[in-house]
């Protein structure tokens, strides 16, 4: 296919650089500098897709972010991108795009049968039809989505890379048109840190589509000079192809920068970058978007925005048609007529809804020999697959009907303009309000919650001179407010502009029949919402624009109603008999302004970088030993170490037996360690823990239980007195940080008088725990300065010395019930000591064990795990731990013991459970019931908290929290599990060495 619609001259494209691409499988060629949309127009493509609901043929209608029709599926496979606006896709070699929402092709679409049944598919059709029966939606949805859906998401992982950047600046200027550039220059010259962004590949905004002069030179030259000057400023960052997609509280903005096109292998460069910008001031120079006129069958391929037609001619050197009709309510669209004329495209007529268009631009058009039909409207567009002609009639006096004789004008292009809407999206994102300017039919930004201001076209100041002026002032002012007051002698850029006459607002233009009776007046092209739909919603009682939006889906498509929202709102106001459309309100704009790939939000937080893996000093030994890991917070802890061919149960059985019969070794480095110092440290511990600490001797350890104010268990651990005013507290692995925070909170807010300092030393020490009958013999080979005999180092004692020549603290504390030594060495020696213990321990049968074995061994002894036996509703008394509650002092949580709930007699208590069949293993979390049977409901009396098979006991066992549990010891209870009910005997929660002989051995 040749570039039949390419103009011989003009446009910011490089005719010496052809670019090959395919559209729906057809090979085509465009030029470097084209967008996909301009290249498609060059190749004479009129139908680019089908509409969402009625599957009507649709063509390109805009040239930028406001495009509602020309959505394509870009590329295939893992790199495919859905719903890409052809107007925003820069053409690149090898690009492949297909139409969406049509099957088998946009030219022949089977689903277009829907448009025959449009009377059956009014507003709210899906709500009304498929919500009965209520449960039916999940079936209907599947089919409807397939028929109506837009593009397809990739199913493979995204091969591209994205990253983030966090920056701060004094002035963020969003929008690189005349206003934005002017603002950036003024701000930059003060020395302020400035970031200037524009979504497009070229700076200039609307200047790129017009032929203006600024400071007596061409606008393009002015832009070039401005960018050159900005590039010399050290603290100015200029980002093109970057969209400010969201603006949030505290002057925080999100930008999406596209760094390479989709097929280019960026190498080490990420494809897109998400910028987090924190700015002191924000200048929103986001411009304006043209809105279409709403007339019958205004969706035909060939009906375009007038400014877009101009853009294609001026910027891309393509003509969107051969014979145009301009349809307008304002002066600006006359520029399109003049541009077409200059590009030698026939202009059949300008149809102006205004009675006497007599501004300077209309005068120029008349001088150029273009026919103007005033006080008129298009009543119909002929040509289902592309405009063939329009019918034109005069408006009646009230402009709610037409009169006279219809005139048919042959044409293949309708350039329509209903005025310009300031882009106040970002202003609105961050809580800014808007007021409706009734004369011009636009929303203007009013109060803002941020340090921001809308300027230029974004503020309704459409004339070039005003934009430059405002930009200059706003840039300077923003910098000054951010503290940069350096004066510059440079002057405000000067441009001449043509003063335009006011537009005439007629929101839905009448036809020969009432709206909805002849053709369709489309408001939202992407979601196929018509003026008739909005009128129906109003008749059905919808008065709020927010509700109407959700009912009709107006403005809910990927373009978020950039062209249709305001006409839609005005039609609603009219239908409700409200004079000022501003009174029905506008919907809130929400981020993102344009779609953002999820990959960009993820950034580099993918794969191994998703979340840190915290490693102990012995981590890589465990890895080489091929352990299975358990995640504990961000830590990886060895779960068990299976040997070749071993099942998990086999491995755990072997580890459990070794720890009780030979020697086991556990990496306990992850346990939290807090160094506590100060003259009031003992008093502090008295208040934090439930038991008494004043009499703990130096070199002795004590188990402590920490409660929250509600009396419920928060954490537990062993604390050792290292010196007169010096303690070392240990916490559970997962609570290490929150316990430190808890201690600091009490010290800083409640007890600032206590002289205590707490510091985390978790990471400073490697902790190697060895236990079992051979533990002492093994350790004695490693130390000659620590007496390990039970008398010298009894249970709950601590000694400092050396182990393997390494300075160490050895604690006689035990979580297994065996004679156990916890060796703390400086972290960087942990791996060396571990390796040496493994070598020397071989003759003693040393066996590394993981968290699973640790859990089994401690459960055999009835030791609780905070977070397993407890769940935030468990008091010490519930666990039979009354012995740890001091009656002589106050401590956090004590008062709550007197609450009625704390004193309920039927509270759940910790007990043991022995399944009658010793091979039945209960499910943790299983509900315990008092009686067997399948009558429902069975009262649930408790739940299983821990359940294992014990190799040492030769049977299964469990711990459970059961109502009145202590009094049920000896009773039978039942645990219904999937498929069977397991009968258990209630026992005391200890199963092994209840006298503690081994512990003290």
């Amino acid at each position, binding site marked *: 296919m040749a570039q039949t619609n390419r103009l011989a001259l003009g446009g910011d494209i490089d005719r010496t650089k052809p670019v090959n691409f395919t559209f729906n499988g057809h090979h085509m060629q465009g030029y470097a500098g084209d967008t996909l949309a301009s290249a498609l127009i060059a190749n004479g493509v009129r139908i680019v897709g089908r509409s969402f609901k009625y599957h009507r043929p649709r063509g390109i209608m805009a040239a930028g972010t406001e495009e509602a029709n020309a959505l394509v599926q870009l590329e295939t496979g893992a790199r495919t991108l859905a719903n890409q606006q052809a107007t925003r896709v820069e053409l690149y070699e090898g690009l492949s795009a297909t139409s969406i929402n049509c099957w088998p092709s946009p030219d022949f679409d089977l689903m277009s049968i829907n448009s025959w049944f449009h009377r059956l598919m009014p507003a709210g059709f899906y709500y009304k039809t498929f919500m009965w029966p209520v449960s039916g939606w999940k079936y209907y949805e599947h089919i409807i989505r397939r028929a109506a859906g837009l593009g397809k998401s990739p199913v493979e992982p995204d091969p591209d890379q994205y*990253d*983030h*950047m*966090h*920056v*701060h600046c004094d002035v963020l200027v969003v929008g690189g048109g005349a206003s934005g550039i002017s603002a950036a220059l003024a701000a930059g010259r003060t020395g302020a*840190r400035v970031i200037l962004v524009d979504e497009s590949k070229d700076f200039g905004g609307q200047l790129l589509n017009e032929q203006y002069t600024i400071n007596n030179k061409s606008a393009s030259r002015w832009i070039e000079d401005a960018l050159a000057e900005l590039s010399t400023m050290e*603290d100015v960052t200029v980002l093109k192809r970057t969209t400010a997609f969201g603006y949030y509280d505290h002057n925080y903005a999100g930008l999406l920068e596209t760094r390479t096109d989709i097929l280019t292998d960026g*190498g*080490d*460069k*990420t494809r897109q970058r998400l910028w*987090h910008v*924190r700015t002191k001031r924000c200048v929103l120079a986001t411009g304006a978007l043209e809105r279409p006129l709403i007339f019958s069958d205004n969706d035909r391929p060939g009906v375009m925005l007038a400014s877009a037609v101009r853009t294609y001619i001026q910027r891309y050197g393509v003509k969107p048609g051969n014979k145009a009709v301009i349809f307008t309510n304002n002066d600006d669209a006359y520029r399109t007529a003049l541009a077409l004329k200059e590009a030698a495209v026939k202009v059949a007529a300008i149809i102006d809804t205004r009675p006497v268009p007599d501004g300077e631009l209309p005068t120029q058009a008349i001088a150029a020999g273009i026919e103007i039909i005033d006080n008129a409207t298009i009543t119909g567009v002929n040509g289902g697959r592309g405009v063939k002609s329009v019918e034109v009639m005069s408006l009646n006096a009230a402009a709610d009907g037409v009169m006279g004789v219809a005139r048919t004008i042959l044409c293949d292009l309708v350039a329509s303009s209903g005025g310009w809407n300031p882009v106040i999206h970002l202003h609105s994102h961050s809580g800014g309000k808007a007021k409706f300017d009734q004369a011009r039919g636009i929303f203007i930004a009013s109060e803002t919650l941020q340090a921001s201001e809308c300027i230029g076209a974004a503020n309704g100041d459409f004339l070039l001179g005003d934009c430059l002026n405002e930009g200059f002032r706003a840039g300077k002012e923003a910098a000054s407010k951010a503290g940069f007051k350096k004066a510059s002698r440079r002057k405000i850029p000067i441009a001449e502009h043509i003063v335009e006459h006011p537009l005439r607002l007629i929101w839905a233009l009448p036809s020969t029949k009432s709206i909805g009776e002849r053709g369709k007046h489309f408001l939202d092209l992407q979601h196929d919402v018509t003026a008739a739909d909005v009128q129906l919603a109003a008749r059905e009682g919808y008065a709020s624009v927010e509700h109407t939006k959700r009912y009709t889906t107006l403005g809910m498509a990927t373009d978020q109603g950039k062209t249709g929202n305001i006409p839609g709102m005005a039609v609603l106001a009219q239908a409700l008999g409200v004079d000022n459309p501003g009174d029905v309100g506008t919907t809130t704009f929400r981020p993102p302004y344009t779609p953002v790939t999820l990959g960009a939000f993820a950034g*580099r*937080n993918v794969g*191994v*970088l998703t*979340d*840190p*893996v*915290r*490693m*102990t*000093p012995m981590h*890589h030994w465990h890895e080489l030993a091929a352990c299975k890991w358990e995640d504990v917070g961000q*830590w990886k802890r060895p779960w068990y170490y299976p040997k070749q061919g071993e099942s998990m149960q086999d491995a755990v059985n072997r580890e459990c037996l070794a720890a009780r019969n030979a020697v086991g070794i556990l990496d306990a480095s992850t346990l939290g360690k807090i*160094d506590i*110092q*100060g*003259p009031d440290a003992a008093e502090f511990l008295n208040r934090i823990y439930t038991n008494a600490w004043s009499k703990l001797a130096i070199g002795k350890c004590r188990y402590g239980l920490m409660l929250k104010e509600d009396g419920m268990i928060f954490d537990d651990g062993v604390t050792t007195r290292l010196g007169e005013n010096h303690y070392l507290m240990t916490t559970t692995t997962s609570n290490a940080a929150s316990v430190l925070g808890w201690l600091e909170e009490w010290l800083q807010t409640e007890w600032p008088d206590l*002289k205590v*300092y707490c*510091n*985390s*030393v*978790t*990471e*400073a*020490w490697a902790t190697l725990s060895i236990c079992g009958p051979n533990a002492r013999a093994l350790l004695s080979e490693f130390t000659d300065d620590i007496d390990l005999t039970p008398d010298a180092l009894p249970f709950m004692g601590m000694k400092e010395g050396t182990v*393997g*020549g*390494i*300075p160490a603290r050895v604690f006689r504390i035990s979580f297994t019930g065996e004679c156990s030594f916890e060796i703390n060495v*400086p*972290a*960087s*020696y*942990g*791996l*060396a*000591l571990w390796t040496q213990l493994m070598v020397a321990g071989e003759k003693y049968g040393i066996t590394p064990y993981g968290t699973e074995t640790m859990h089994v061994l401690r459960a055999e002894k009835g030791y609780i795990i905070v977070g397993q036996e407890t769940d935030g509703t468990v008091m010490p008394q519930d666990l039979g731990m009354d012995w740890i509650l001091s009656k002589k002092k106050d401590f956090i949580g004590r008062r709550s013991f007197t609450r009625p709930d704390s004193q309920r007699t039927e509270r759940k208590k910790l007990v043991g459970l022995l399944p009658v069949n010793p091979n039945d293993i209960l499910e943790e979390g299983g509900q315990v019931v008092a009686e067997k049977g399948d009558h429902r409901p069975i009262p649930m009396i408790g739940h299983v908290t821990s359940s294992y098979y014990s190799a040492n006991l030769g049977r299964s066992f469990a711990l459970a929290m059961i109502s009145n549990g202590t009094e049920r010891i000896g009773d039978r209870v039942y645990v219904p599990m999937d498929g069977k009910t397991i009968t258990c005997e209630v026992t005391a929660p200890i199963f092994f060495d209840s006298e503690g002989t081994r512990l003290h051995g």
Partner: protein
Amino acid sequence: MVDAYLRQSPLAHLHLAARATTSNALPDAGVVLAEIPYLSQFVLRGNADNQAFTAGIKKALKLPLPISPCTSSVDKTGHSHILWMGPDEWLIVGPSDDQAHINSSISTAFRNQHFSLVNVSESRTLIRLSGTQAQNLLEKGCSIDLHPSAFSPGSVVNTHLSHAHITLHRLNSIQQPTYDLYVHRSFAEYLWSWLEDAAREYGLDNRSK
């Protein structure tokens, strides 16, 4: 004295020294990284309003205690620092063989003073970052304002770099911006991987010794 070969830095597993780039092999690399393990590090807690305390520290370490938030002090050699960590908290950093000296000089400096000194030399390792792209690299994962006007030489903050907590210290003795990243040892391997990944587009010169 313990045999040094028994010691494993948090990044030892990555064999950074063996993989280090030879001198000037990467003249264009925008990022220069090196692990500097085993520095002496102590957390000092005390009352900054107490003249005796601040003066005592200055006398003991020959370094003033930085009292202004997010600042640091450095000695003439450039190897010893005190970093402000909070209103009553500082990190004392010195060469690896300085542990005993720091410990004894402070412990003996005061009588009847409420303060605490905790040896945390083993808790963190140090990754030193420099190169023309150093600030850009940090900005990929750190939301602190690192512009020289906001984060001048000598500045210190506790912050996050991606998902790892770091103490970030901009050295003040060197012309080109150089940053010291103190990272807890359990996060060190994650952080190094993150840095390597983030540095890809700039080129990485690994100068670990």
